[in-house]
C-alpha cells in the first residue's frame, strides 16, 4: 500500500503518515570489491565441494570394507556399530558440504543486490470474469441441459449411484462383526493357570507366596490358531496378598487363600496393567497411570480409567494347581457401547 500520503491541512506540508523511503543503499561485500577476497571465497567454495567428494569416497570404501558386526568404543556413544557410524557420518558430510558450498557460493560470489518484482492483483479483470461466465453459460445452453429435464435428472441419478459399488466392496469386505467376541475370553472353567513364559508351566497354590506376582495365561492358549488375539483378552495377573487386607468379601471368595487373579487388560484403553506395588497393594498401568487397589477388588483410585478390573474366579484342582473356577463374568478390557 503506497503512502504518497494525504497531507494534514494547515500543517505546513506535513504528510498524514510516513512514506516508504525506498530500498536502503546497497552495501558491497568484500568479494564484490576485492578480487583477492573473491578468490578466497572461490577457494572456500571449492574446498567444501572437494570435502564432499572425499566423504563420498569414504562412504563407498567403508561400505565394502567395514564388517557389519564390528563395534568400536566411541566416547559419548559407547560401543558403536562402526559401519553405521562411518557410513552415516560420511554420507552426512558429503551431503552437508555440497549444501554449505552452494550456499557460501551464493552468499559471497552471486549478486546480492535486491531486486523488486511487481505484484498484480489476484483478481482477474472484470472482462476475463465476464468471458468465463459467458463461456460457461453458453456451453450450458448449447448442451441443452436446461431444455432437457429428463437428461438432467437421469445424469444426476447415474453419477450419484456410480460410486456406490466401489465403496460397497471396500466396506462390505471389512472385518467380521464383533458379535459376542468382545465379551468372551479363552478362559473356561477348569483351565489351569499357566506361567506366561516361553514354555508355559502350571502354577501350584503353594508357589504363590505373599506379595509375589505371576503373569498368567490360560492352559492351551499357545496351541490356539489366534494366540495373540486370545492373549489380548485372556492376560491375567495373579497376586498373593494377605487375606486380612482384602476389604471386599466377593474378592476373598473368588480368590484362594489370599491368592487373587485379575484381568491384566486395563479398562481404559487396553494396555497391560503390570506394575504391582506390593507395599501399597496398588496396580499401576504405565500408559496413562490408572491405578487400581488390589485390596478393594481393583477399584480405580487414580487416573482416567473408570471401571475396576474384572476378577477371575479361581480355585485349586486335586493336585494343588490353580485353575479357573469360571470364565470371566464380564467383558474385559476397554469399554464399548453395548457393554452394558
Amino acid at each position, binding site marked *: 500500500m503506497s503512502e504518497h500520503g494525504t497531507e494534514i491541512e494547515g500543517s505546513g506540508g506535513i504528510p498524514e503518515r510516513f512514506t516508504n523511503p525506498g530500498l536502503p543503499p546497497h552495501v558491497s561485500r568484500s568479494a564484490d570489491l576485492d578480487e583477492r577476497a573473491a578468490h578466497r571465497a572461490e577457494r572456500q567454495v571449492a574446498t567444501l565441494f572437494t570435502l564432499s567428494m572425499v566423504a563420498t569416497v569414504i562412504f563407498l570404501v567403508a561400505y565394502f570394507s567395514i564388517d557389519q558386526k564390528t563395534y568400536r568404543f566411541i566416547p559419548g*556413544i559407547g*560401543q558403536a556399530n562402526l559401519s553405521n557410524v562411518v557410513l552415516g557420518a560420511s554420507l552426512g558430510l558429503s551431503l552437508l558440504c555440497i549444501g554449505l558450498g552452494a550456499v557460501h557460493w551464493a552468499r559471497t560470489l552471486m549478486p546480492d543486490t535486491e531486486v523488486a518484482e511487481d505484484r498484480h492483483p489476484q483478481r482477474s479483470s472484470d472482462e476475463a470474469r465476464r468471458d468465463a461466465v459467458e463461456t460457461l453459460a453458453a456451453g450450458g445452453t448449447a448442451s441443452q441441459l436446461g431444455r432437457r429435464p429428463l437428461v438432467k435428472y437421469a445424469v444426476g441419478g447415474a453419477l450419484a449411484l456410480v460410486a456406490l459399488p466401489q465403496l460397497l466392496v471396500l466396506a462390505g469386505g471389512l472385518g467380521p462383526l464383533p458379535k459376542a467376541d468382545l465379551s468372551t475370553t479363552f478362559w473356561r472353567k477348569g483351565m489351569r493357570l499357566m506361567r506366561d513364559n516361553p514354555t508355559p508351566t502350571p502354577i501350584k497354590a503353594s508357589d504363590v507366596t505373599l*506379595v509375589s506376582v505371576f503373569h498368567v495365561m490360560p492352559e492351551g492358549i499357545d496351541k490356539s490358531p489366534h494366540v495373540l488375539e486370545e492373549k489380548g483378552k485372556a492376560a491375567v495377573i495373579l497376586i498373593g496378598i494377605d487375606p486380612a487386607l482384602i476389604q471386599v468379601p466377593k474378592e476373598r471368595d473368588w480368590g484362594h487363600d489370599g491368592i487373587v487373579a485379575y484381568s491384566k487388560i486395563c479398562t481404559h484403553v487396553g494396555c497391560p496393567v503390570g506394575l504391582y506395588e506390593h507395599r501399597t497393594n496398588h496396580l499401576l498401568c504405565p500408559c496413562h497411570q490408572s491405578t487400581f487397589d488390589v485390596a478393594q477388588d481393583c477399584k480405580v483410585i487414580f487416573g482416567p480409567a473408570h471401571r475396576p478390573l474384572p476378577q477371575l474366579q479361581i480355585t485349586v484342582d486335586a493336585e494343588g494347581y490353580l485353575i479357573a473356577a469360571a470364565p470371566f463374568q464380564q467383558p474385559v478390557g476397554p469399554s464399548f457401547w453395548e457393554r452394558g
Partner: protein
Amino acid sequence: MNALGSHRRHPAAIFILILLGLVATGGLYSLLAPRPATAAVSTADDQTTGRKLFLANCATCHGISGQGSKVAPTLVGVGAAAVDFQVGTGRMQLAGPGVQAPRGKKVMFTNKEIASLAAHVATFGPGPALPDDQYTKGDGNIARGNELFKVNCAMCHNFAGSGGALTRGKYAPSLRNATGQHIYEAMTTGPQSMPVFNDQNLSPTNKNDIISYLHDLDENKNPGGLNLGNLGPVSEGMFAWIFGLGLMIGAAVWLGSKAA
C-alpha cells in the same frame, strides 16, 4: 585503584566470583559435613558382630528385633538375601525416612560387616538365603532372559532397564551395572515396592537368564549411536526439537545473512 579494582566491572568478574563462592562452599561442606556412622568392629563372633552392627545402625528404625516401626518395614522373614541386597547396594543405611531408598553412591559397610549383618537378620525369621553362585554368573541364555524380562520386569524398569515411575514419587530404579548377585536377591526378596519373584515363579535358571540379558545391556552396545538414555520417543523428540531444528534454523539464518 589497583589492578584488581580496575577489573571489578569486567564481564568475567561475576563468573569468577560465583566460582570462588562455589569452591568455598563445597570445600567447607566436605570439611564439616557429618560422616555416616559406622560402628567399629573387633570381635570374631559373626552373629554377635552382626547384632552389634544391627543395634548400632538399623535398630533405630527397624526395631531391636527387626519388628519394624512406623518409618521402616519389618525385617522378620526377609532373609540374609535382603540384607546383602539393601546394604550391598548402598541403599541402607537410609539417611532419613522417605518415599524411596535410592541406590547409594557408596556402600557404607565392608563385605565382612554385611555378611555378619545378614547372618543376624536371618535369625529373625526364615527367609531367602544368599543365592547360589552358579545362578548369578550371567552365563545363561540371553534371548530367553530378554523374553522373561519383557513379561516380568519391563513394565516397571523399562525395556532396557533404564527405570520407570511408580505412584506417589516412588520409582523402579535403573538396573545399569548391577551385579548378578544383587539382581537375583532383588527378585527373591522384593525390595521396597517390588513384588517377590520366588524360585517357583522364575526358576534359578530363569533368573540367571535375566541376569545375562541385563549384563548384555551393560556392555552398552548402541548400534544406532547415542542412546539418549534408552527412554523412548520423549528424549528423541526433545533432541529433534532442540538440536535438529536448532541446527537447521542456524543454517537458515546463516543462509539469509549478508556475507562480509
